Structure formats: structure tokens, C-alpha cells
């Protein structure tokens, strides 16, 4: 192929999916141009208060990624810019981007906000706060904006429109205001394009019948801002008109969506609102437990890992009320200013009204305008749902253009993150011949050596975290106190230590005060330590000369009513850590070579796709499959349903793999042992029909794609015994040819068998979770059954339909004309007996509120999807965790959905959680991309915090080696000649690359011969000693 290929990629949209794709692409060897329409990256996730189902602080987990983008020398960030046109074809695109003028010189702006303070044009609605607050014409989107640069709204600025004012220019000490800026035309050459333009939501005013213009009717994003600590009320939940706390809040689901009757409404389910409202209700309850929360829903759709349990928790632990029924109208009660809701309670079959203080519209989410301009630009169409259609997607992918996040279809954050990684992997597969052509290595300044006799000079930065910390802890007082302690060369406070401008501030401080140790007192090291460590490295300091003291999550947030004591606690904690910090030593991370081969465990679709992608990127791949052939569950399905892939595609993929000399397929195989660490795993596999062949090989990375299987039920056993060929799981039906299905006239599909435990569904055999896929599989099976017997009567006994998928709504509406969907409450209330006509079924119908009975001659059961057999053994071998349900547990539920906490091991598909095939494929690509990131450079850095042995103290007892969970300690024998005697001496030796740095050996050694770096005996002792206070006089003497 002589065609020109560019080693760079255009990513449109700087939300979480675009951010993930950009970061992964640079690791894979490509330069990224990240174009964002707004003035900051971060997208919707930056506006969220918390994320479900873990209630992680959204910005806290996102901000480090935003900063990572900003610092990455291989990402060119073009904010406040848009794509004007795209020309070219795959591998070689010319893109015109218009960069709008900010009227602020980004190289000069320090983000101080002096321009905004003096700007006389006020009252412009804040987009970030969803119009709940206002800002000046000169402003910044939000305090942690990336880049941290102000901008002037040219539609309202007095100087730009009338040539008067110009106060900001006079007030800017950095001389950054530049009214002469003009739109910039930028031309980019890229090889591939990722579209991640995200979604929008209507403001409540759009929904007139729901009293949208009432200040107490909010959109779900507005409510999210209201809950947020950096929102318009500083996180205080109040009505915006009378500033009173609401005592009752109604969440209205499906507003403007799932509606085929009104053209202004969306026909699909937005997929995340049920979870989002449950989350908001829980946070509301945490703010004030007395506030009553009502969620008015069509049905609750909780599609995702342990999402269903989250809904149950909201009911049972927090007392959130769920009302099954839509609200048709909202009116203000003129007497008391409350809102009257008119709704039907379906469960009780009555039409009712309710008065609440506040209403939150979980209204439809849809692709934003930029998306459609884009589709025009690419000349692809969209379907009646408003999304790019399958043909459009296929055509674009042919041309190396990929859609991700909400711009592909509605989805939640982890799915969008995995998809971002997947796009990067797919592009890497196409552009791999030209990777690293445009990549700049991050160059750090040389590390300043720390002499043994050099006195510590510690810098301390105390973060206010807006008001998160400073609202409780008197940060100025803390700074005064800390500055008076020994070895503290400089201490100060600032608003947001994690922002990118603060990183520059830290570097300045280190230079100006010649610091050689640093403490930041802010939030948690679990999320923010890497960020600050990197800043230290950029300032020429070893990153381990740093400690993060947690004065927010573990202080200001948990002692909100005790400011004095919280302030004292902050002082104590920083003092204790200071005792440690002065004793920190620089540590070296070692570089470990990475074997450029990957082990894929599981040969289902997920494994095949991962392997195919990696093999095409030029890596060696070993696929280990238990069964005799590749293809997994899906290869036995007669049809694949509602995915872009055909069965023949899978067979083609398998063929490709068979013909690729770099791919080693081991079927009928089980893994016997995996030993090693990132980059260097030794694998032992037993294979062959007689299981006698043993193969040993080395890989650098591992992808776990072990999938699921559908369990059998013990229910209705007696009834089923007589006609056992007429009872099957959904999966079993999927595997039958039409001719193999026993003749039937009246089939029944029972959903939620032995799953989704709640107050009605109890018992040891009931799984707590929802398998997520059964409802849509039921649609597939209905079509299958109707194809065999179009006149058959089909009952679907269901509880709530969980197919929050773009096409599912349409499919369901189509099918329910031919099939009766009937709701039941508890599986225990479904009675099945065998009779002459095969089965007699009796249950309590919700809605009709009566007992329904009928005969059926075929029963299809939606039993739970279970983690593949052998998952527990594999998790032990890999030393990776599983959830209580036995599925593998990812490193972070939101932002690391396909990584394990252990480096070099990744997961995808059913191993993570039961999911639809297209989502499994996305994860498969994502996992392949994440694995490729490690292998592509041929080396990785490992932990710096390991244990070390003082050989003089070691007596060779071997206790440490015995307890080390990673086999990282070996007992080394040396032979010593002492005069006439030959002595064999045994000493413990730490294998640094294997040591995970837990420190258990240091605690075990009876002689104190082992110590843990960075958590040494002396360092911890100092922390303890300084808890009670400091003897300043004795310090001075010393």
C-alpha cells in the first residue's frame, strides 16, 4: 500500500470518552489533536456531583485525567474550536479547524480572575451551572477548567461591541487581554478521526406541561449542579426562589423520551436517567435524611454492573419511594407555591395527585447540534432516532472514522471509557505501520541529587478545595502553624491544588525556595498522588520526596460542624507527615522489559476480537480455550441479534487467526499456572484431547475473556420433569434450529428467574443481581418463536424491562402487538403445574391486580448469567479479585472498567459482567488497546516502593520468603571461607520487579532486617511520635 498515512489522529470532543481515547492513542504511538467546542475539556462528567453506583466524587476522579491531557506533550489541545470541514480518505485526512478568539492570550493568562472581578457586564447564564448561576462577560467555565484560561464573551463585551470599557485589560497584571484576536484557521493532517461529541439535555422550560418555567422545576443536570459542592449554592440543597430546603422532591423519569406519539419527544430510552435519579435521590437523602424522594418511573432500568442492587439499596437503606407511573402534568399550587403532580400509579391502578417542593425532570438526552453538523460534514445520515445509522457507522469505520460515547448511542461513563479505549485500539490496528512518527518523549529535567547530609527543605501547600476544605478548616491558620515547624522552608495555601495552574505554582515554589521535599495537604492520595508526583518530577525532584496529607475526605468533610477541631486535626496530620517527609529518600523505579506477546484467556467472541486486534497490530497472541473450538457461546447461536456483526464475520475472524503465524491457538486447553509480573508472565498450559501436552510460553500481558454461562433453575422441578424437552433456558432456545424446537401453540417466557432479589424475591437460590441481557434476548426469542409459528400465543412474564438500548424500544413496541407482556411481582407467586396440555401457569398480574391462569406448552426461562466455571481458580492464579457474585473486579468501576489493579492484566466481556455482544466487542477492543499500550514500547516502569534487606542483620531464617504472597523474596546462599571453615550463609533477597510493596515481610522479620521503602520503621515511628504534639525546644536543640 503506497497510500500516505499520517501518524496523528483527530479526536472531536473533550468529554471523558474523548479524553480516554486521546490518552490511550498517545501511549500507542500517535499524536492527537483534541478539538473541543467549549472553553474547557471535561464534558458532562465535569458537571456531575457524583457518579453511580459507587458515589465517587465525579470531578475528583476526572480532574487528574483532564490535567493529564493538558500535560501530555503529544496531545495538542484545541479548545473553543470547531471542525469546519474534513477532506480526504482513510489514513490521509485534511481537517480545517476554526479556533475562536478568547480575547485572552493563553500564554500569558495566569487564571487569577482579575478580569472577571472587574468586568461590569454581569448576569450571563453559566452553561457549566446549567443556567442556575451567572457570570461576567470575562469568565472561566469552572475553577478546574482545562486549560485554566479565562475568556471574554464577545456577544456581550462592551469593548468588543461598543468600543467602551476595557477595564479588564487595565486590571490584568499579566497583560493577557488581547482584543485584537481573530478566529484562527488551523489545518491538520490526520490518519484517523474519533467523534466523541457527547450529549445535551433540554432546559426545563422546554416542557411546558410540566411547569418547566417554574424555578422549582429543574432538569436533572440542574439538580446535579444544585447538589454539587462547586455548584450555585455551594452544595446546599435549596429551592431557588424562596431559599428554603425542599422537604419533598419528585424525580420525573422518561420526560420527553420513550415516546412515539409526540414528534418533539425522543423515541428511545436515554439509558442512564434511572440510575442517575436513584443516585440523586440517595445524595439528597445523605444531605438531609428527612427529605422525601419520589421517583416516578415507567419502569426502572438499571443496566450495568451491580446497578440493580444500587436501586434496591436506594429503596431499602435510604427509603427512596418509587412510584410506577408517569407524571402527565405539573402545576403550581398558588396557595402555597408547591408543585402539584398529576400521575397514574400503575401498581395500584389509580390516578392521583401529589404535592412536592421540587421536581426534577430526568428528561431525554440527545446528541448535540455539533454532532449533526459533523454528520453533514462526513455525508452520513442518521435514523429516525436521531443517531448515525449502522450503515453510516460501517462506512465511517471503513474510512478510519469512529464514533464513541453518547454520539454512538446512549450509554454510561464506564461504557464510554471502554469505548474510548476501543477506538484507540482500532485506530492502532489501522495505523500501526506509522506509529511513533510524530511522538515526542516526555522529557523531564535531570533529577536533582539529594545528598545524605543535605538538610530537608520542605514546601507545604494547603489546598482550600474551593470551600470543601476551607469551609471547615481554617487553612490560613494551618499554614501559619506549619510554617513555624522545623525544616519547613515555605508554606502557603491555594484554592485548588490539583488544577493545572497550581502545578506551575508548585514548580515555582520548589525553584524559588530551593525545596527538596514537598507536602500537599488536600484530598486523597489514592487519586491525586500521581499528579503531584509528576509535578515534582517536572520540577527536577524525585517523585518519592512527596506526601499527600488528606485533610478533606478524612477531615473537613467528616467534621463539618467542628471547624476548630477539624483545623487542629489538619495541623496534627500535616505535622505527623512532616516527621515522615523529612526522612524520605529518593527512590528509583526500574524499567522492566515487556514480552511483546499477549495471553488471551477464553476463545469466545470477546477473546477472538481482542486477539485479532492485537495480532493485526503485530503482537504475538496465545489464545487458550477450554472447549474444542473457538467461538464461545455466541457461535452456537443460530442468529446474532441487533448487533452489527454477522456470524460469518466471526468465522472470518477465526480463520484470520488460524492463518496468522503470530497467533497460537490452544483449544481443549486449561491453564495450569501463571507466574510472573507485568511484561514477564510465564504460562503453563495443559492441552490436547488427552490433556497431556504441556506448553510453556512467556507473555507480557494477559486478557481475561472468560465469559459467562446461563445457570439452570431448581424451581418448578416436579412440573418440568414430565415434559423436560419443553422447558429450556433462553440460551438453549437461541442454540436451537427452528426445526429442533418442539411444536407449540402457547409459549411462555419467564424473565427474572432466580435473579434480581428484592423485598418480594428472596431466598438462597436468588441472585441479587440483574443479568442485564435477558429482556433483550427475550425479544430475540419472541421473533424466533413467531418465525416458527406465527399464530402462536406468547406470554412474557416480566418484572421490569431492562433493555435500555437504542433500538430496543422500537423492537419492543413492534413485538408487543403480537405478544402479551404481563407483569408479575414475585417469582414465588408464579405457580406451574404439569397437565395434559403440558403446563398450567398461575400468577398475580400487576396492573390487572388479579390472578391470571393459562396453559402453555413451551416454557423459556431467563435464569441468571453466571461467571464462567473456573473463574475462582483463575482469579487465584492471576492474583486478581472478584466481586461477591464471582465476576472479575475491575480496577475502578468508572474510569478503569477494563483494567485490573494488577499491571498487565485486563478484562473484557462477560468476565466483567453479563452484557450484550456489541458491548463485549467494545470492551474486547478496549482491553486489546490497553494491553498493546504496555507492549508497544517493549518496556514498562515498575513500583518504586519495595522492601529492602539489610544483609548484615539477616540471619536467613526465611520467614519473609515464607509469607511473601508474590514469591518476591528468594533465599540466596553464599559460601564463605572463614579461615579453615567453609560456611554456607543464607540471606533474603528481594526481587524488585516482583515485589508489590505491601511491607508484610518488614513486619514479619524478627530481626528488623527488612524495611519497606517509603514506609520505613523510622518514618512510621516519627508519624506516631508526632501525633501527641511536638517538643519544639528539643527539636531546636537537636
Amino acid at each position, binding site marked *: 500500500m503506497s497510500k500516505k498515512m499520517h501518524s496523528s489522529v483527530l479526536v472531536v470532543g473533550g468529554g471523558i470518552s474523548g479524553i480516554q481515547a486521546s490518552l490511550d492513542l498517545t501511549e500507542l504511538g500517535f499524536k492527537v489533536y483534541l478539538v473541543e467546542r467549549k472553553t474547557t475539556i471535561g464534558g458532562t462528567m465535569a458537571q456531575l456531583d457524583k457518579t453511580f453506583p459507587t458515589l465517587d466524587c465525579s470531578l475528583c476522579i476526572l480532574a487528574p485525567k483532564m490535567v493529564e491531557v493538558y500535560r501530555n506533550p503529544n496531545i495538542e489541545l484545541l479548545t473553543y474550536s470547531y471542525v469546519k470541514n474534513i477532506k480526504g480518505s482513510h489514513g490521509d485526512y485534511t481537517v480545517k479547524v476554526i479556533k475562536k478568539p478568547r480575547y485572552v492570550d493563553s500564554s500569558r493568562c495566569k487564571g487569577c480572575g482579575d478580569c472577571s472581578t472587574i468586568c461590569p457586564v454581569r448576569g450571563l447564564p453559566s452553561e457549566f451551572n446549567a443556567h442556575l448561576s451567572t457570570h461576567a462577560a470575562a469568565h472561566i467555565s469552572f475553577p478546574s477548567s482545562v486549560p485554566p484560561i479565562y475568556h471574554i464573551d464577545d456577544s456581550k463585551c462592551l469593548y468588543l461591541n461598543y468600543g467602551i470599557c476595557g477595564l479588564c485589560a487595565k486590571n490584568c497584571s499579566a497583560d493577557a487581554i488581547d482584543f485584537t484576536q481573530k478566529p484562527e484557521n488551523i489545518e491538520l493532517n490526520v490518519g484517523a478521526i474519533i467523534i466523541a461529541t457527547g450529549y445535551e439535555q433540554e432546559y426545563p422550560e422546554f416542557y411546558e406541561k410540566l411547569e418547566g418555567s417554574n424555578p422549582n422545576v429543574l432538569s436533572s443536570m440542574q439538580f446535579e449542579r444544585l447538589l454539587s459542592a462547586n455548584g450555585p449554592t455551594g452544595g446546599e440543597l435549596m429551592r431557588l426562589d424562596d431559599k428554603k430546603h425542599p422537604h419533598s422532591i419528585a424525580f420525573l423519569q422518561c420526560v420527553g423520551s420513550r415516546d412515539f406519539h409526540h414528534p418533539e419527544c425522543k423515541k428511545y430510552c436515554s439509558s442512564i436517567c434511572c440510575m442517575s435519579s436513584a443516585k440523586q435521590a440517595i445524595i439528597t437523602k445523605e444531605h438531609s435524611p428527612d427529605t422525601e424522594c419520589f421517583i416516578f418511573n415507567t419502569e426502572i432500568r438499571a443496566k450495568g454492573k451491580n446497578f440493580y442492587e444500587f436501586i434496591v439499596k436506594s429503596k431499602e437503606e435510604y427509603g427512596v419511594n418509587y412510584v410506577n407511573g408517569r407524571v402527565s402534568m405539573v402545576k403550581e399550587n398558588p396557595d402555597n407555591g408547591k408543585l402539584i403532580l398529576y400521575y397514574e400509579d400503575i401498581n395500584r391502578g389509580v390516578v392521583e395527585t401529589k404535592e412536592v417542593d421540587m421536581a426534577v425532570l430526568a428528561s431525554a438526552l440527545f446528541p448535540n447540534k455539533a454532532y449533526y453538523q459533523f454528520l453533514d460534514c462526513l455525508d452520513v445520515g442518521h435514523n429516525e432516532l436521531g443517531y448515525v445509522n449502522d450503515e453510516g457507522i460501517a462506512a465511517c469505520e471503513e474510512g478510519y472514522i469512529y464514533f464513541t460515547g453518547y454520539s454512538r448511542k446512549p450509554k454510561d461513563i464506564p461504557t464510554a471509557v471502554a469505548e474510548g479505549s476501543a477506538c484507540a485500539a482500532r485506530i492502532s490496528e489501522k495505523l500501526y505501520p506509522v506509529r511513533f512518527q510524530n511522538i515526542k518523549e516526555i522529557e523531564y529535567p535531570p533529577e536533582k541529587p539529594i545528598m545524605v547530609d543535605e538538610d530537608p527543605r520542605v514546601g507545604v501547600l494547603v489546598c482550600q478545595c474551593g470551600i470543601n476544605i476551607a469551609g471547615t478548616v481554617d487553612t490560613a491558620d494551618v499554614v501559619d502553624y506549619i510554617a513555624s515547624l522545623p525544616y519547613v522552608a515555605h508554606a502557603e495555601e491555594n484554592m485548588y491544588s490539583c488544577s493545572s495552574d497550581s502545578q506551575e505554582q508548585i514548580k515555582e515554589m520548589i525553584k524559588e525556595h530551593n525545596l527538596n521535599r514537598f507536602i500537599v495537604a488536600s484530598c486523597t492520595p489514592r487519586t491525586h498522588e500521581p499528579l503531584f508526583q509528576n509535578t515534582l518530577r517536572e520540577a527536577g525532584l524525585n517523585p518519592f520526596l512527596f506526601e499527600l496529607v488528606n485533610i478533606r*475526605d478524612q477531615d473537613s468533610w467528616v467534621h463539618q460542624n467542628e471547624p476548630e477541631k477539624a483545623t487542629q486535626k489538619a495541623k496534627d496530620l500535616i505535622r505527623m507527615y512532616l*516527621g515522615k517527609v523529612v526522612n524520605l529518600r529518593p527512590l528509583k523505579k526500574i524499567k522492566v522489559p515487556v514480552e511483546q506477546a499477549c495471553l488471551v484467556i477464553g476463545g469466545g467472541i470477546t477473546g477472538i476480537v481482542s486477539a485479532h486486534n492485537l495480532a493485526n497490530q503485530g503482537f504475538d497472541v496465545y489464545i487458550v480455550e477450554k472447549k474444542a473450538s473457538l467461538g464461545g457461546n455466541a457461535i452456537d447461536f443460530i442468529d446474532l441479534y441487533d448487533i452489527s456483526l454477522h456470524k460469518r464475520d466471526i468465522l472470518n475472524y477465526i480463520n484470520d487467526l488460524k492463518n496468522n503465524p503470530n497467533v497460537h491457538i490452544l483449544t481443549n486447553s486449561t491453564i495450569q499456572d501463571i507466574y510472573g509480573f507485568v511484561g514477564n508472565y510465564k504460562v503453563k498450559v495443559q492441552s490436547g484431547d488427552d490433556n497431556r501436552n504441556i506448553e510453556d510460553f512467556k507473555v507480557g500481558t494477559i486478557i481475561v475473556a472468560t465469559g459467562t454461562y446461563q445457570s439452570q433453575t431448581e424451581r418448578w422441578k416436579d412440573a418440568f420433569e414430565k415434559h423436560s424437552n419443553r422447558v429450556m433456558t433462553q440460551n438453549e432456545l437461541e442454540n436451537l434450529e427452528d426445526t429442533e424446537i418442539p411444536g407449540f401453540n402457547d409459549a411462555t417466557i419467564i424473565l427474572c428467574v432466580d435473579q434480581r432479589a428484592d423485598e418480594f424475591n428472596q431466598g438462597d437460590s436468588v441472585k441479587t443481581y440483574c443479568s442485564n441481557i435477558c429482556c433483550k434476548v427475550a425479544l430475540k426469542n419472541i421473533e424466533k418463536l413467531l418465525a416458527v409459528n406465527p399464530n402462536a400465543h406468547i406470554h412474557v412474564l416480566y418484572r421490569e424491562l431492562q433493555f435500555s438500548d437504542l433500538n430496543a424500544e422500537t423492537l419492543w413496541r413492534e413485538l408487543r402487538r403480537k405478544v402479551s407482556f404481563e407483569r408479575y411481582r414475585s417469582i414465588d407467586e408464579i405457580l406451574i403445574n404439569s397437565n395434559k396440555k403440558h403446563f398450567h401457569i398461575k400468577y398475580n398480574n400487576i396492573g390487572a391486580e388479579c390472578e391470571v391462569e393459562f396453559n402453555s406448552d413451551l416454557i423459556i426461562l431467563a435464569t441468571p448469567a453466571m461467571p464462567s466455571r473456573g473463574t475462582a481458580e483463575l482469579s487465584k492464579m492471576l492474583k486478581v479479585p472478584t466481586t461477591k457474585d464471582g465476576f472479575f473486579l475491575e480496577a475502578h468501576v468508572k474510569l478503569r472498567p477494563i483494567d485490573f489493579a494488577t499491571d498487565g492484566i485486563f478484562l473484557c466481556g462477560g468476565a466483567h459482567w453479563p452484557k450484550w455482544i456489541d458491548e463485549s466487542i467494545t470492551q474486547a477492543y478496549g482491553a486489546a488497546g490497553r494491553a498493546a499500550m504496555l507492549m508497544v514500547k517493549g518496556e514498562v516502569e515498575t513500583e518504586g516502593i519495595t522492601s529492602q534487606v539489610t544483609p548484615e542483620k539477616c540471619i536467613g531464617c526465611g520467614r519473609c520468603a515464607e509469607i511473601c504472597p508474590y514469591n518476591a523474596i528468594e533465599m540466596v546462599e553464599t559460601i564463605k571461607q572463614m579461615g579453615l571453615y567453609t560456611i554456607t550463609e543464607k540471606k533474603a533477597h528481594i526481587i524488585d520487579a516482583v515485589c508489590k510493596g505491601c511491607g508484610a515481610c518488614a513486619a514479619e522479620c524478627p530481626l528488623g532486617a527488612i524495611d519497606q521503602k517509603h514506609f520505613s520503621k523510622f518514618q512510621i515511628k516519627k508519624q506516631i511520635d508526632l*501525633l501527641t504534639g511536638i517538643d519544639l525546644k528539643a527539636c531546636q536543640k537537636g
Partner: protein
Amino acid sequence: MVKKKSQKESFEPQILVFCCNWCSYAGADLAGVSRFQYPPNIRIVRVMCSGRVEPIFILNAFKNGIDGVLITGCHIGDCHYISGNEYAQVRMEHLKKLLKSLGIEEDRFRLHWISASEGKQFAELITDFTDSVKRLGESKIPKKLGLIELESC
């Protein structure tokens, strides 16, 4: 008598808590993110694993006059380092006996498991532990102030 009681009530114990990086520290963070309030008497020292905690650390703390020590880690079976918490459990069982023979009340020392999702339980644990230390009153060992000093090489 009355005076003594009020003294006891106003007594604010100093409590040292060890948290492992992966579970209990995350649980403590979650208590914060969820704004579960608890008494401001604890000072957390982060270690990577509860298996890192040496019994001598606890003895040291009591020697300095600290009123209570709490060690937290992942639930058994959940340890990020597979079995570190099991080692902690064995060591602390031994230590408990030693503390008893030294005359340090049993309730001043506790080992407890907290997972990363147990913010609420963390807050409850701290509230409960602080209360029980408060009931015991101030440690009989006089408070000793610490020094910021460098380890001699």
C-alpha cells in the same frame, strides 16, 4: 465526683488509626465523600497493607501516651496483597495478650476490617471506638511530645 464526670465528658482522646491503602483508607475516604460525620479524635497513618503494621508501632503509640489505637484493613479474603490482613490478625492477637500483661485496657486497642465501600461503617466504627476510649478516660501513661528529626545513618 460530679466534677470528675464532667472532666471525663470533656476529655478528648487522641487516637491513632492505621489504614491500608486499598480498602480501609478508601472506606475512610468514602465516609468523607458521603459526609458521614464522626468524632475528630482520630489521626490516620496510611500504610499500603495492614500486614505492614508492626506490633512495636502500637507499643510505641501507647508509650507516648496515645489513648487508643485502631488497626483497619481489608476484610479477610479481600486483601489487595492476598493475605496481608491475615498476618495482621495473627500478630495483633499476640499483641493483645502482651498489652493485657502490660496493664493497658483491652478496649484501647482494636483490629477491624473495613472495605472500600463501607464509608458508613467506617464512620460508625470511629464513633464507637472513640466512645469506648472516652469511657476509659485518659491513658495512664503521660503524654510525650515528639521530635521532627532525621534518622541517623
